[in-house]
Structure formats: structure tokens, C-alpha cells
């Protein structure tokens, strides 16, 4: 692949804190290598800002290898930028051309308040997981991994759902700010495995209740989440979530 350098204009959302009114700032970056990742390009810009005595741009990042789900930039109208099935850290600058203007915004949803610049508070996802995204296991020695047989097809589907890194791109892309792709991935991951069965019903009820409490919207099956998901979580999981939730609530004992 041809290596080239480029000059870019960046319009980046700057916001001091959760209560401050933010706005776009325009920055020029020069001699950006096409081999850099998008985050490395921001690192270069931040070096310049620090040298000028200015406040660097705050953004979330951790593993920089596409598995932690920290990076969360809405680039040119798309969560995680223009590439399919890619996180921002794996997005490389060869996705852009010399002279381009790139607009970078934080995730937008009431349930994801902006903490600073491009950093949003995604602890709503943690609270949804705490509400039911776990299984019960006995303490003591680890049991033999093969002691409970698992159907291969279900194991594959469960594994595909478990690939969700909880980055929040589904919420960012959804016109309803719905978190259902995330919740459905977590529910499917456990509901498809025998280990997830003891809490299967309470999990669906409690995680959906927490999701509603956090103020996420409801799913209208448009498919924007599936199209933008860096881990290609399928929207079919949302239909499975609906089935899990409805069967759990319809078979509930309370009147």
C-alpha cells in the first residue's frame, strides 16, 4: 500500500466539563503519515497543543488494538469513522485524503453525558451489566471446562454475541439512542449457554429494567446499530432479547 503524508483540517468538539457549553475548535495538522492510526494523529496534535501551553484534547483510549471498547469518536457523522467493523484506534489515516476536513464529535445521547471534550460517561452500561450480566458459579476449584456439553451452533452464536466490547457505538448511531444491541448481545451471550440458564429470566427482566431506567430509547429495528458495530453484532440478537424478555415477563408469577 502506498505511503503518503497529508495535511488536514480538524473540527473537534471541545467542552471543559459536564456542565460547560461546548463548541467546535478548528485545528490544522501537517505531515500526517497514512500509516498512523487516528488516535496517533490526535496524539501528534495533543503534543503540539501541550508545547503551545494549551489544554490537550481529552479522549478515551486504552488497548489500542480494537478490543477494549474505550475509544469512542464520532468521525464525519459515523461512530468509529468511515471503515466497516473498525474501532477508532484501528482506523488508519489512509482512510483520508490530503486536504480533507474531518469533524470529530463525542457520542451523543442523554444517557452518555459528555465528561470532557470527546470523553463521555458510559457507566450506564456498567450498571446494566451489574443488573444481570453475570452467572452464578460455585466457589472452590475451577470445574472441568468440558463437563457441561454445549451445542456447537449455540456456542458459535454465543461467542459472536460475546464479541461485544460495550463501546456504545450502537447507541451513538441509533436515532432513538437505544442500547438494545448492547443489551441483546449480553443477554444472548449468556442465554445461549447452559451456564446462563439459572438466572435466564431474572437477567432479561432486570437488565431491561435498568436499561429503561438509564434513559435509553427503544428499538425500532432500523438496523443502524448493526451497520456501525465494530464487532459486527447482529440485530437478530435484539429479536432474541425481545423473546427472552417477553417470555420471562409473561411467565412471571406476580399478578
Amino acid at each position, binding site marked *: 500500500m502506498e505511503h503518503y503524508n497529508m495535511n488536514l483540517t480538524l*473540527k473537534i*468538539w471541545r467542552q471543559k466539563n459536564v456542565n460547560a457549553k461546548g463548541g*467546535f475548535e478548528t485545528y490544522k495538522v501537517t505531515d500526517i503519515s497514512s500509516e498512523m492510526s487516528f488516535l496517533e494523529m490526535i496524539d501528534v496534535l495533543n503534543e503540539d497543543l501541550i508545547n503551545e501551553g494549551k489544554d490537550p484534547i481529552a479522549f478515551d483510549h486504552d488497548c489500542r488494538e480494537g478490543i477494549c471498547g474505550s475509544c469512542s469518536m*464520532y468521525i*464525519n*457523522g*459515523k461512530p468509529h469513522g468511515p471503515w466497516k467493523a473498525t474501532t477508532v484506534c484501528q482506523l488508519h489515516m489512509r482512510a483520508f485524503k490530503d486536504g480533507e476536513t474531518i*469533524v470529530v*464529535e463525542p457520542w*451523543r*445521547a*442523554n*444517557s452518555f453525558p459528555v465528561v470532557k471534550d470527546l470523553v463521555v460517561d458510559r457507566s450506564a452500561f456498567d450498571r446494566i451489566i451489574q443488573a444481570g450480566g453475570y452467572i452464578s458459579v460455585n466457589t472452590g476449584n475451577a470445574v472441568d471446562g468440558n463437563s457441561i456439553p454445549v451445542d456447537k451452533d449455540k456456542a458459535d452464536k454465543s461467542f459472536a454475541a460475546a464479541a461485544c466490547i460495550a463501546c456504545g457505538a450502537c447507541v451513538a*448511531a441509533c*436515532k*432513538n*439512542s*437505544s442500547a*438494545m444491541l448492547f443489551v441483546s448481545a449480553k443477554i444472548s451471550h449468556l442465554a445461549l449457554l447452559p451456564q446462563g440458564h439459572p438466572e435466564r429470566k431474572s437477567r432479561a*427482566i432486570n437488565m*431491561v*429494567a435498568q*436499561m*429503561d431506567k438509564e*434513559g*435509553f*430509547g*427503544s*428499538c*425500532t*429495528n*432500523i*438496523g*443502524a*446499530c*448493526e*451497520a*456501525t458495530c465494530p464487532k459486527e453484532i447482529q440485530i*437478530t*440478537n*435484539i*429479536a*432474541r*432479547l*425481545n*423473546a*427472552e*424478555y*417477553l*417470555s*420471562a*415477563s*409473561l411467565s*412471571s408469577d*406476580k*399478578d
Partner: protein
Amino acid sequence: MTWKQMFTSSIGQKFVMAITGIFLITFLVVHVGLNACIWANDNGEMFNTGANFMASMLVIRIMEVVLFAGIIIHTIQGLVLTAANNSKRKVGYAVEYGNRGSKWYSRSMGLLGTLLLLFLIMHIYHFWVPSRLGGIANIKPLQEIDYSNGLGKQYHNLYLEMIQVFQNPLIVILYVLGCISLAYHLMHGFESAFRTIGLHNNRYLKMLRHLGRGFAIIVSAAFAMMPISIYLGWVK
């Protein structure tokens, strides 16, 4: 989990939309089938006889109430959900997400539904009101027609009402626009309703996607052809 908790949850509210939506879809099958009798070209005898049979059957009278309840619940729940969903992102994006991964009509179910509601009000005023409430207060009753060879059995001439209403080209255009809204509403709604009630087997979802699109196009086109064929004088 109480009933209230279930039906006020995000999925519970979607469930209400799906169940009422599927019920309204089944109604369309009956409606389009009966109305297609106008193409028998027998001066409306088959159509009027059929309509009279429906009107005089207790089951259908009860289902009429259920139908109105279904439309009202689907409308109110739809408006409540749309308003709630639209309020979940107070600060919007500078660059919009656009149509990647979703169709415009999938994102416009609220708008299409509102257009359908306006259409329904006009439609009920044109046919249901004179047929069911004709003679009460100042509402003009439908003409009566006798198909019983002098045995004295009188039928509402709903067929004549259709012929008269669809002489106005503006009304024909409004009806065709209503049918187009219906087609797009069903293009998304048919499959989405089954997803919402929890159907997640890929083989059935694929089947329902094709079935839903076929249903949306065929049923809406059949409905649209009714005012058009009457206006153009193809129905005798």
C-alpha cells in the same frame, strides 16, 4: 414483574405496537379481499352483497369495535414511543448519521403513521360514517338497492357511494397517496412487528422479509387501483 411493569417497559410498549400492528395487517387482508369484488363488473352486486353480509354478522360487528380499539391503541402507543425516543438525544450531531444501514421509511414510521391517520379520518368520513351512521342527525344515508328480484331485501349501495366519491380527481390522488404511505409503513412494519414479538430464527426472518415486502406492495397496489379504476371508468 407485574403487568404494569411489563407494558410500560420499552420492550412491552414495542410489544403493544407489534401485536396491534399484526392485527391491523390481518384486517387489511379482509378489507382488500372484499373490496376487490368491485371488479366483478356486475354493477356492484357482489360487493354490496358481501358488504351487507359483513354488516349483518355479529362477529364482524364485535370485530369492528376491536378494530377501532386496535387503531386507537396503535396510534397512541406509536405517538408516545416516538415522542419518548425523540427525547433521548437532547444535543444532536453536527454531521448527521444519514441513511447508512437503515432505510428512510424505517426511520419515518411516525411520519408515515401520521399520514395514514389523516388518510383514515378522511376514509372513515367517506364510507364508514354514511354506511353506519346514515340517517342519524343530518348524516345523509346511503341509497338502498334491491338484488333479491323483488323479494324486498334492501342493501346499502356502498358501491354507488364509491363510484360517486371517486369521481373527484383530488380525492383519487389523496387515496393513492394514502396507499403509498401504507406501502412504505408495511415495508418496515410487517417484518419489524415479528422481530419485536421475538421471532429470531434467521430462516423465518428471511421468509417474513420477502413476505412483508410482497404483502406491502401487492395489498397497497390493489387498494390504490380501486379509486384509479373507478375514476378511469374501468369498473362497470
